[in-house]
């Protein structure tokens, strides 16, 4: 076994174990963190396939941005662990059936028949100075230009939709108007009141007993 193979098996084992833990763990935060680990291990496997751009983008986008926001939400929830466990036995037959169906479909779709050197010949060796990145960009902006642009427009639509949904009327948010904040003068906020620092004492009065120890 070469070093590369050892690294591959290490990353795969981590990916599978952490993927199992995502569904098996009681705690949603630990589940989300295991999902992060799964992504990370898969990025390692992709690196071994010479897909360094995809691997780094996987870490950057999914691990760095998507899962962080996901964790954000999960951390602030207080999920009741016991109620999540209820009905385990009741739903078990359906779950097993579903799992079997999905496994069967997966095997039909991407079973051992589709792989092997006969159906998937090994790619030609890379020439020296081969740049995975430049190649990907070339393909993305020529062959797949339309799908690429359409998906970008779809994402833009999603952004616009999300923003307009949060900003719909009636507005209950309280916003700061920054131009007003900057334009504020001292006189608007603070008033200096002249106070005499020494009080006039009427000498005819009896002195108070405040100074005496009680």
């Amino acid at each position, binding site marked *: 076994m070469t*070093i590369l193979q050892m690294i591959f098996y290490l990353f795969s084992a981590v990916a599978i174990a952490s993927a199992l833990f995502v569904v098996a763990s009681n705690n949603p*935060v*630990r589940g989300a*963190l295991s999902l*992060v680990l799964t992504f990370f291990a898969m990025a390692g496997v992709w690196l071994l396939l010479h897909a*360094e*751009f995809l691997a*780094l*983008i996987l*870490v*950057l986008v999914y*691990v*760095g*941005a998507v899962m*962080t*926001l996901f*964790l*954000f939400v999960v*951390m*602030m929830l207080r999920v009741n662990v016991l109620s999540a466990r209820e009905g385990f036995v009741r739903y078990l037959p359906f779950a097993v059936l579903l799992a079997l169906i999905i496994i069967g479909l997966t095997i039909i779709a991407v079973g051992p028949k589709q792989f092997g050197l006969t159906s998937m010949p090994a790619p030609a060796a890379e020439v020296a100075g081969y*740049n*995975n*990145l430049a190649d990907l960009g070339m393909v993305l902006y020529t062959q797949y230009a339309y799908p690429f642009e359409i998906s970008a427009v779809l994402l833009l639509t999603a952004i616009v939709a999300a923003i307009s949904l949060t900003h719909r009327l009636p507005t209950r948010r309280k916003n*700061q108007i*920054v131009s007003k904040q900057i334009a504020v003068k001292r006189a608007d906020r603070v008033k200096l009141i002249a106070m005499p620092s020494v009080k006039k004492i009427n000498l005819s009065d009896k002195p108070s007993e405040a100074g005496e120890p009680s």
Partner: protein
Amino acid sequence: MEGLLLVGWIVVKIIAIILVLLLSVAYITFLERKVISYMQCRIGPNRIGPLGLLQPIADVIKLLNKEIIFPEASNRYLFVIAPIISLGTALAAWAVIPFDKTAVLADINAGVLFVLALSSLGVYGILIAGWASNSKYAMFGALRAAAQSISYEISMGFALVGVMMAAGSLNFQTIVQAQAGGIWHWYWLPLFPLFIVYWISGIAETNRAPFDVAEGESELVAGFHVEYSGAVFALFFLAEYANMVLISALLAVMFMGGWLSPFQGVPYFESLFAFVPGFVWLLIKLSFFLFCYLWFRATFPRYRYDQIMRLGWKVLLPVTIVWIVVVALAVQFKMGPWFV
């Protein structure tokens, strides 16, 4: 045997980088206290060793000897893993930084992406620390730090897109080589807005003053690492300073010509300073940015949280997007003298 030797040689290089980095981190903490002291008309630490120079060593010994306290209600594993993630990502990014023409640990094609990916992983250390401590202040600090990092990562990434377009590559060596030709060819000039945006975002990304609300001591005690003590706290400390050095190095490499000599193309001085090795220039540029970190800390008051978010999303991001268009046009039409 050949392969083993190669692996051994790489390990030696890694250890050399990490040792130098850790030592410099120790002395940056000393420098920070000294610089800020002089800026505030104080003397700073001067008791241990000549001129107080052994102060960081004493600090390290103190930190390592302190007891590590695990909060009763904390999540033990995650509590320990969090500082490891913080420090690990801060150190791993150094693999792709070029120190000289040939001195780089991993000269990979997607170097810029690698650094971006690792710096986005660093958020997990903070988030996990805040959650695993099971403490309100730690949680608040972690949420603030994470929100801030995510927001500024976007303008940071966009600023880097400008650099990538200008250099036509994601490889750090190519980016440095593309800036060859003297101080006016370095990218700080043609990409000036991106340079400033990257600088500000870098400071925000490392959660340093004036963007250090994540550990705003007047509100949150110490932020996400409230519950940490002793050696595990030291790891967070190390990670923060290692990240500062990293951001300074990235600024030097991407906008200040990395290891290129500033006298390139100047008639007399070029030959006069030709003997200076490249990493000395990199070190000088890097030190300037590091000093600025300390200078800012002594100068600026802390930003309010909504102002930080506003700056990131409504000021820096539009600036970068506009300037990316400008750079794209300049590169397309080969605008001289930079993009010929």
